[in-house]
């Protein structure tokens, strides 16, 4: 079998920021998805540990793409200055975190946790394609359910949702005022 690595690198390069999905890659290379995942895992490890390279291969959700390594950042920035240092607001991060851990989740559930209205924020996150609608809940009013997208996993460098940072654990109280974990 010929070496597929340069072909994969070439495909990821051409595809750019959108990346390529596992299923597309599997179809084009005529390899079943399970073997491909294994092959990609090895390739990514090899690729990312090569210090002579300035690129890194990332897997987010079921998509792959190439990005520059952090070492090139300051130089690229000189060339393409970013407008200040863009930050997420606390409100955006809280809303995203709640959706990521609780998905699929309705707006009302998010608002119950945050204690504030999240209508505008949800619209902004939808517009930035960080969350998407995931059907409707079968209850009064049929509210939309929301879930995070591959773009969400991309900007937080998550390969899958199982990689979400662990939520801090706190005791909760029951009606008798007893603490339990």
């Amino acid at each position: 079998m010929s070496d597929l690595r340069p072909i994969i690198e070439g495909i990821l390069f051409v595809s750019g920021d959108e990346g390529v999905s596992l299923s597309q890659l599997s179809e084009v290379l005529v390899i079943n998805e399970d073997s491909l995942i294994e092959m990609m895992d090895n390739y990514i490890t090899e690729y990312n540990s090569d210090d002579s390279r300035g690129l890194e291969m990332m897997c987010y959700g079921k998509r792959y793409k190439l990005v520059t390594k952090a070492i090139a950042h300051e130089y690229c920035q000189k060339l393409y200055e970013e407008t200040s240092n863009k930050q997420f607001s606390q409100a955006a991060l809280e809303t995203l975190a709640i959706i990521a851990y609780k998905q699929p989740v309705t707006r009302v559930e998010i608002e119950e946790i945050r204690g504030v209205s999240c209508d505008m924020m949800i619209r902004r996150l939808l517009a930035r394609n960080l969350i998407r609608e995931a059907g409707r809940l079968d209850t009064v009013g049929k509210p939309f359910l929301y879930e995070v997208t591959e773009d969400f996993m991309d900007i937080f460098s998550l390969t899958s949702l199982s990689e979400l940072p662990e939520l801090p654990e706190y005791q909760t109280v029951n009606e008798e005022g007893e603490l339990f974990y």
Partner: protein
Amino acid sequence: MEFFVTIDQFEGPLDLMLHLIKEKELDLFDLDINILTEQYIEYLHAMEKMKLDIASEYLVELASLIEYKSKKLLPNVEAELDDNYQQQQEVDLVNRLIEYKKFKEVTVIFDDLYQRRSLKFDKPQSEIVNQWIDINENYESTSAYELIKAMNRCLKRFQLAQPYEVNITQKRISIDDRKKQLKFNINKFDEIFTLNNTMYDCRDLYEVVINFLAILDLVNENILSFTVKDDEVYFKKV
């Protein structure tokens, strides 16, 4: 008592309560709702005096805190049912605070992940892809969100490109240099080519103008000949 932390620094009533609990060194897991309520009211009053807008969400929570407090003040003759209700309310509030605290705290990790990821850049899809994707007549319906994604990409690129253009203005190409480039490059063009073909690498109006002036010079020097047909100018190497 002075308040240095203004209300717009909080994400909502729960965030404010967590702040008060921390500041007043209250025990979240054995919460004295009376003290919390007093502090909460005092804080909102202070904000009001500073003429700061207090969102309705803060007032909703205030109402339930006051309800809780007023019930507690009632004499013990009150039915036991109320006592249970009271306890349930207390537990609910504490659990809401704990739940919110978890998410608030985990955002620090997300922020860190985001910062690290933003040190890595991606690139746009290569233009060559357009040769392969045929815009045919049987498109499947596409989500309108694809449009906004596309628009976001453009705007992001547009923002990146702005200072970039400023950077390169320091090294502007001259007409003479452009003529040299063109003399070299027209060998790679088709025998007959258009003005547009010669602008293959022009990135702004300045370069388009310089390119045009260079072409005029080349025509003048009899290196190029031209003909006009249907609004389009065609060139040929002499």
